[in-house]
């Protein structure tokens, strides 16, 4: 039995970012009914901009903020300009439309930045602390604690603030909320904003922890979605647990030769099992829907 703790720590950090992305997806899905497939691509474009600015030798903080800012703008842009055209369509059509946005962003970033290998590092990578006999870089600790704090923050925001209340109202019933005089578009815009910020942060962290590559980052949305599925696309805590679980499973399989090449199957297996489990008692209903 190999020593699993270093892999456990790695998995916890990456899993934390899956969870963070998942939280961003869930916040948006609850408020606007859009499951955003472009989430990873938005983060990728933000991270690539940050990398570009670092090449111009701008200060790091500025570059990171610019990356997160661009991700937020992209999210807001889609949310204000494209999403309203599809407001009354099926959930699945809204989700499929974001695939179109993802393709546009992916094509743009691969064309503009070509696919040369490049590196993105946060200075805390080199600082490490020894914990339980394993060296843990500060970046990994930041990833984990940030996810925890942000999830708590978002949960408090949804339950304690007026805007959070409005978002939950929209999640319950959009038409009724609109009848009650809730500014649907305005509340949705906030959801796209929050989700965009989280996409930007996740993009930066993943390009440090995994790889700065447009395709890789774009499809990081799949484990994030798997995490969100564990939370039934509703629960923030479920999403967080799902993300951590997927990250850890994926990493802990690394030292075992037989399953190592197949370890990235973890998010799919977890998601499929959870979906089947959640739907186990459903019979055909006339209402249809999701």
């Amino acid at each position, binding site marked *: 039995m190999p020593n699993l703790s270093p892999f456990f720590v790695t998995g916890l950090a990456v899993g934390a970012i899956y969870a963070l992305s998942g939280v961003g997806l869930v916040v948006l899905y609850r408020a606007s009914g859009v*499951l955003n*497939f472009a989430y990873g691509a938005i983060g990728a474009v933000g991270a690539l901009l940050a990398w570009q600015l670092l090449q111009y030798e701008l200060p790091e903080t500025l570059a990171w903020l610019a990356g997160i800012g661009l991700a937020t703008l992209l999210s807001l842009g889609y949310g204000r300009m*494209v999403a309203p*055209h*599809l407001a009354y*369509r*099926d*959930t*699945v*059509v809204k*989700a*499929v*439309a974001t*695939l*179109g*946005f*993802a*393709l*546009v*962003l*992916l*094509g*743009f970033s*691969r*064309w503009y930045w070509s696919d040369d290998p490049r590196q993105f590092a946060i200075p805390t990578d080199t600082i490490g602390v020894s914990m339980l006999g394993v060296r843990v870089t500060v970046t990994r600790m930041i990833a984990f604690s940030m996810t925890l704090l942000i999830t708590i923050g978002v949960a408090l925001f949804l339950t304690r603030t007026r805007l959070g209340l409005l978002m939950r109202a929209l999640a319950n019933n959009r038409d009724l909320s609109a009848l009650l005089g809730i500014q649907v578009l305005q509340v949705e815009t906030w959801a796209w904003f929050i989700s965009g910020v989280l996409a930007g942060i996740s993009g930066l962290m993943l390009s440090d922890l995994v790889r700065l590559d447009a*395709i890789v980052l774009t*499809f990081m949305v*799949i484990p994030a*979605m*798997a995490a969100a*599925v564990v939370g039934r*696309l509703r629960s923030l805590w479920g999403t967080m647990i799902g993300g951590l679980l997927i990250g850890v499973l994926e990493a802990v399989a690394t030292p075992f030769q037989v399953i190592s*090449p*197949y370890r*990235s*199957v973890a*998010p*799919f*297996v977890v*998601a*499929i099992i959870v*979906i*089947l489990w959640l*739907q186990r008692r*459903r*019979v*055909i209903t*006339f209402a*249809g*829907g*999701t």
Partner: protein
Amino acid sequence: MTSRSLNSDSTTQGESMTRWPVTVASLRSMAGVAIPLILVAIILPGLLSAFWLRALTSSAIFALAAAGVALLYGRLGLVSLAQVALLGVGAWVALRLSHGTDLPFELVLLGGGIVTGLVGLIVGLPALRMRGLYLALITLMAAGGFQVIVGGTGFPDGGSGFLGRVTSASARLLMERPFVAQSDEAYFRYVLVVVAAGFLLVEIHRRTRPGRAWALIRKSEACALSAGVNVTLYQTWAFTLAGFLAGIAGGLLAGSVGQLDGRNFPASSSILLFALTVVGGVYSWLGPAITGLLYRAFPSLLIAWNIDGNLAFIVFGAALLHALITAPAGIAGQLGDVGRWLSSRIGRRGGTR
């Protein structure tokens, strides 16, 4: 809901549904498809370079896979994001059968199709309980899983054992092509014939009992159930048929290239194929044909013109958004509109529509 209201409803979408599979009008429309196709099959291979012949062969193959996606999305409103993965399953089975047995190519193809149909059935089983978003997600997860597994095992290349892998690269075998179609030109014609047969299979389904059942299920499952339609049977049937088409396409692809790389079937391809199917149009056979060309010939065109292939993604993404927001029948629907407009112009010269 009577069958008359069903008819009038679906003709507004630009499709004709008749009670009997063959009428004069349907014969005429089939001839309108068959004659150009035969001309293409006879004339085109002689005019094309090897590069374009390959591009068009794989366009035709992916058109067949797209026909399955279009069937599920257009008939039942189900989003399947696993079609290229299913194509990979078909290719895997076909390669394994081809290297492991002496079966003729047609039987190998059929075997791949049947196994993939069964796999499609298994992937689609959850669809009986869930639809919409969760179905899209579960197919995406299945495609992702397939990507990882086949990336690890690779495709059979003439070795022994269940996986059929050889240890040294020099011992790799190519898949046998059918003896009537050894050359690239002949294989292109062969592919066209098989793809046309696949389209015909879909068309027959559309015009007979399953097509009517699907239309009713699409309208309302409650309606369909109360009208005595076996909802479960016809939904699984659609999934199996889509899987079968993908499997046949996979076998054709394996025969075209000879050997396949496990890394060439990522989940992203399935997503792209779905997107392009919506762009091409899901309500008629023309849509998947356009999809195939967009998926494989359009990138080749960009290569030929020395344009960065990544720009294709931007075009495809924008086209998907455009199709979803303003053109639900896709490019095929828009071409159909233009055609009808032209024929009404020619029909009554100077008159209004």
